[in-house]
């Protein structure tokens, strides 16, 4: 440290800010990770083109974790101890986030996790700007129930995310005066939904909500349409389209499915139009953009805004700037950091899938992360380091 202190000011100004990124850009999660990586590089290129941060250029140090959980801790260590980065953005699955999070906490490196997830992480060193279940479900359920009816059937992926989201759906269905008439969980490799579709018909709900995840579960939406059920019972989902899955379904299979996210390519805002143009200029076409790529982009913008406001790259100063209620305008609208939970307050758009796109029906501005707020208060308890399982 004394070495750098003795250097003349001009050399310091030329010193680059190092941004660490850890994503699965190959392997089975690359459909998520590749566009996230592209979004991150686009944001950095834009920041540098505008003169960098604090007069310094931002340099990316990126590692590809190849969809292998073991590599997350390894590259996390490498970024902090060897590359000595100033901030880390990355992680896709919840397991990868937990691996990175503890390393960053120990080494006092600021960490951003920019993915839709199950909620409940409470840690002063992390900032999260993905949508949590309550932010999304609280918007989706009333809309879908109003369009269909009070009896709801839930089909969810059988792991952390699906289980927690299913509980939130039940809560909001009850809060809206509805009734959950059935809940089924599916292991991630189940791709045969025939019996389930028959079972749903014996129960006869007004609405089916499906937080199903991954390629095998996509079969449900096909088989539902193939049985001719699509015109009989409406569908809503909290996951379909996050990795652009709706572009795989034909219009006959997908049209009319109700979803709610922070981002859609069809958002007709100047910020989104500009973002899509810049993306197309950098990568040729904008077809690969999806929800979590935009989250990653907005995470970068949030961090850059905080560094500018703090006038420093030093961790405590940046955290203080973020906690001051800082907000940015991203492609998906305004993002504000909630100082209590370090989660984002953001717009949620209710959409219907139409012709392999998502048509925005209604925008609910500035939704609070109410699920995490129930359990997490970093201002009262700054040393907290827990992922809470929220009791509903």
């Amino acid at each position: 440290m004394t070495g750098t202190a003795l250097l003349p000011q001009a050399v310091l100004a030329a010193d680059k800010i190092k941004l660490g990124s850890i994503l699965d850009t190959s392997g089975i999660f690359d459909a998520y990770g590749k566009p996230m990586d592209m979004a991150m590089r686009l944001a950095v290129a834009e920041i540098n083109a505008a003169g960098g941060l604090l007069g310094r250029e931002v340099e990316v140090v990126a590692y590809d974790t190849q969809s292998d959980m073991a590599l997350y801790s390894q590259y996390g260590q490498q970024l902090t101890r060897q590359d000595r980065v100033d901030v880390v953005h990355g992680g896709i699955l919840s397991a990868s986030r937990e691996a990175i999070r503890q390393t960053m906490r120990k080494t006092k490196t600021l960490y951003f996790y920019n993915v839709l997830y199950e909620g409940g992480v409470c840690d002063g060193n992390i900032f999260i700007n993905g949508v949590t279940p309550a932010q999304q479900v609280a918007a989706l359920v009333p809309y879908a129930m109003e369009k269909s009816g009070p009896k709801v059937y839930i089909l969810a992926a059988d792991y952390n995310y699906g289980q927690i989201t299913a509980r939130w759906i039940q809560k909001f269905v009850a809060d809206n005066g509805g009734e959950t008439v059935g809940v089924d969980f599916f292991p991630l490799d189940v791709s045969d939904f025939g019996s389930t579709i028959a079972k749903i018909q014996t129960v006869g709900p007004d609405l089916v909500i499906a937080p199903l995840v991954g390629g095998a579960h996509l079969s449900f939406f096909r088989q539902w349409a193939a049985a001719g059920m699509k015109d009989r019972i409406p569908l809503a989902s909290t996951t379909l389209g996050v990795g652009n899955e709706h572009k795989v379904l034909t219009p006959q299979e997908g049209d009319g499915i109700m979803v709610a996210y922070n981002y859609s390519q069809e958002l007709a805002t100047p910020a989104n139009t500009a973002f899509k143009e810049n993306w197309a200029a950098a990568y040729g076409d904008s077809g690969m953009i999806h929800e979590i790529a935009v989250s990653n982009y907005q995470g970068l913008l949030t961090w850059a805004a905080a560094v500018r406001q703090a006038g420093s790259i030093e961790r405590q100063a940046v955290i203080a700037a973020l906690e001051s209620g800082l907000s940015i305008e991203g492609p998906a609208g305004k993002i504000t950091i909630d100082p209590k939970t370090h989660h984002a307050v953001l717009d949620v758009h209710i959409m219907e899938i139409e012709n392999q796109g998502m048509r925005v029906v209604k925008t609910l501005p500035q939704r609070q992360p109410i699920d995490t707020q129930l359990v997490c208060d970093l201002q009262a308890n700054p040393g907290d380091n827990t992922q809470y399982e929220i009791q509903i």
Partner: protein
Amino acid sequence: MDLSFVILIEMLYAVSSLILISAGLAVVFGMMKVINLAHGEFMMMGGYATITAVNLGVNIFVAMLVIAPLTVGLIGLIVERLVIRHLYGRLVDTMLATWGLSLFFIGLATMIFGNTTTGISTPIPGFTVGNYQINGYNFFIIVVSVLLLIAMRVVLKSTRAGLIARGAMQQADMAAALGYSPNRIYMATFFCGSALSGLAGAVLAPLVGLVPTSGGAYIAKAFITVIAGGPSLIAGLFSGAGLFGVVSQVFTFTISPVMGEVALLVAAVILLRLLPQGITGKFFKGKL
């Protein structure tokens, strides 16, 4: 009444899809004693062959029933010539080699098709039974698997080629002494087994979202069915698939999909404890 019909159809469908999934493995593993851990990847390639052909404008039924089996059969042929033929009779080695192959095919498919989920729609509309809607494609799967079993039986029982193949599998040196080349018989049989796997992948493709790793979902079920079925090819396939299909559907329908999967595995464990040689090791002995 309507409901029992719907449940019956779902059970028949479950049995049929197990037969389809396992048919290729029954030939390669049951007959040829090659532990083919790349079986699921052969199915995955059948699915991609279908989707690619359909996207190029080929009729979907031609793509599923002709192009996919031929494509995967040819891939199987190449694999047999390059790798498998050096390993006949070495069970553990075939396992290692085909495991490597499965990784190779997953990587190859990811390079060619990317890692996003792809798929095509079912070509048959749904229809109504009383108050219920059924997936019309289920009937297609049932018909294909019935025809498949009949065709396998005819080929193995009533044609000279089938007789020679069965003979060579049992006693290769005797077949050689009678003037047939075991080398070529093995090659042809492996081609047929691969083509059957390709057909299964192709026929199931419109029901599922396909990714390069899709094969993993089939491999366990295929092995369980073939092993539980026992030494007889067709009777084993039919009884194994029949048992597990019905068990898993009953539990799926009455309790939950998770219990359906669990029940299938528990049934397999109990069955192999009682009948270590498989169903046809004790019953239907000596049947085809």
